[in-house]
């Protein structure tokens, strides 16, 4: 098991390095001069010397590999470099914003799992066509329905008309944990529906596959009742593909978070991303893209390790 984990960690670090290079290169390739952004959009009235000083301030006068190394060594020290647009450093911008996004993602994950797993299990225990149809319908609509539509509907249904829950903004968790969770409920529910649909779309077919596995017949032959067969034998085996697909579900979550934060006016990383695109702030943009890549790689790593615990076959394969 130890060897298995070590091997996965090394692969992930390598992927992360490769990913950072790609993100960095991508940001150099795309058109647009950051100096112009820094100067507020126009280069006409500025003399060459000012341009030059800004270029050296942003480190743009160095060679590309040198710039990359500077960037990476900064990141390792917790310094993500300068924003091309605002006066704040990227690090402080992210520090201000990450709380709202982290809580949103966590709560959405919890809500999504709390919907998807019991619903899929219920579908497997009571195999009737009506329940199956309802669950398939939910998964199909939940995948197709744009996040903003769910958000807007929830605001209208629960927030705007009834005034039950806050629909705008975010209360810092450190300042007021309860208020913070309350202000995150609607956005998390919005995002959680999509997460639930994405999870169910993987979990339900694999539960159906497992249902026909010979070991399920063995479990029935032992005298277990339907519920025990599903919970003890079918669900753990069926969850293997769902864990493998955690990366896909995470991608869904990250993509959705951008929109959800916009809908609910949350000051999170997603809205920071949208702002940085508006402002052509490549300093912030490249950091956020790198963060997303890192989140994806870490998710896959964690999923692999969890899989190693769930599925003993993987552990021994890795050792031998």
């Amino acid at each position, binding site marked *: 098991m130890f060897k298995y984990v070590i091997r996965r960690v090394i692969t992930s670090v390598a992927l992360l390095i490769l990913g950072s290079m790609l993100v960095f290169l991508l940001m150099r390739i795309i058109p647009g001069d950051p100096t112009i952004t820094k100067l507020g959009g126009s280069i006409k009235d500025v003399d060459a010397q000012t341009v030059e000083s800004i270029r050296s301030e942003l480190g743009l006068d160095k060679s590309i590999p040198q710039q990359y190394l500077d960037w990476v060594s900064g990141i390792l020290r917790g310094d993500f470099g300068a924003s091309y647009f605002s006066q704040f450093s990227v690090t402080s911008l992210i520090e201000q914003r990450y709380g709202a996004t982290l809580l949103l993602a966590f709560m959405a994950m919890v809500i999504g799992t709390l919907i998807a797993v019991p619903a899929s299990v219920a579908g497997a225990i009571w195999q009737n066509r009506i329940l199956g149809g309802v669950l398939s319908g939910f998964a199909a609509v939940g995948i197709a329905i744009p996040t903003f539509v769910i958000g807007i509907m929830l605001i209208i249904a629960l927030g705007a008309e009834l005034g039950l829950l806050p629909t705008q903004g975010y209360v810092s968790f450190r300042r007021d944990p309860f208020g913070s969770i309350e202000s995150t409920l609607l956005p998390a529910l919005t995002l959680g529906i999509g997460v639930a649909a994405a999870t169910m779309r993987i979990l339900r077919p694999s539960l159906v596959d497992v249902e026909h596995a010979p*070991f399920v017949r*063995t479990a029935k*032959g032992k*005298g277990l009742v339907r519920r025990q067969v599903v919970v003890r*034998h079918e669900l753990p*085996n069926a969850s293997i593909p769902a864990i493998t697909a955690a990366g896909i579900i995470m991608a869904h979550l990250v993509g959705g978070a951008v929109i959800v934060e916009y809908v609910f006016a949350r000051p999170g990383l997603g809205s920071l991303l949208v702002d940085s695109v508006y402002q052509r702030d490549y300093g912030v943009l490249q950091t956020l893209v790198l963060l997303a890549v890192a989140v994806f790689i870490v998710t896959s790593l964690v999923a692999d390790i969890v899989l190693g615990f769930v599925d003993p076959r993987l552990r*021994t394969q890795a050792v031998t």
Partner: protein
Amino acid sequence: MTTIAPKKALTDVVLDVRDLEVEIAIPHRPVIRPVRGVSFTVSAGQRVGIVGESGSGKSLTALALMRLLPPRARIAGGIAVLGDRDLTRIAEGKMAAMRGGRISIVYQDPMSSLNPIMTIGRQITEAITTHEPVGGRAARAQAIDVLADVGLPQPHRRIDDHPHQFSGGMRQRVMIAMAICTNPDVLIADEPTTALDVTTQARIMEMLAHIVEERRMGVLLITHDLGLASSFCDDVNVMYAGRIVESGPSRDVLRTPSHPYSAALLESICRLDSDVDKPIAAIAGQPPLPHQLPSGCPFHPRCRHARDMCAAEAPVRTTSTGREVECHFPLEQLPPR
């Protein structure tokens, strides 16, 4: 219609199956009946075999007794009395308590019949705690004992291993341990050794014989291998197209088969002591499909001894010399070969 041989009536019958019928109803298709009135008994400590080609209905018979038929199939008639309960009628909740408790099954495929992500220990203790009011530790001790009984080396160490760490033969031993750990009255073994090589097969059957002897368990062996059945079982039932066409003590059936189908099955076995130059006889043609059964005797299109009457009329079961057979012209009446 069913007659029970006096010898069996005197013994301690644990499972009494009479006129069992299984139907499969698929929408927009005619209902088919792959098991058409099967009767046999199993006594304590007795080993009974059901032999037939694939499609003869033998596995469905086993699944019907466990009440684990596939979704579209159902028991359409007959009774199956285990102890004092009719397995075909009791409620699903009560049946669950019987399954694995009073009647157990070992399946054909040991490779995939064990849960791959659960230790074998937990899979066995699960069977024990489902049926007996024992704690986790006691169940574990019991599991180690039963693993030792089925001949798993170092059971106390291997109990926490996962299925993929065992060979096919060892996995089948684990499956048997799981099936017998609650001391059921009847153990159904559905092609238990088909997936294994010949040496392993022999060892497993030997171990199984030993165990059921010791625990006085009734065994129902489902197999396509008449040789295996007759060497293991006290009595064999030869099944064809959903009916038992011949039954009797295995030694007699093996030595002098009455039904032409039993004889053909016997001939198709390649025996070590047979003349090498003689071609191995396979039975011509295919077993009939349940939705297009031939008229009269279902075996007549493939039967070497068939006459006009065989196609016209279904044969009635007759009993002679301790043997039951469903044939118009049982082989004993023909001149000996």
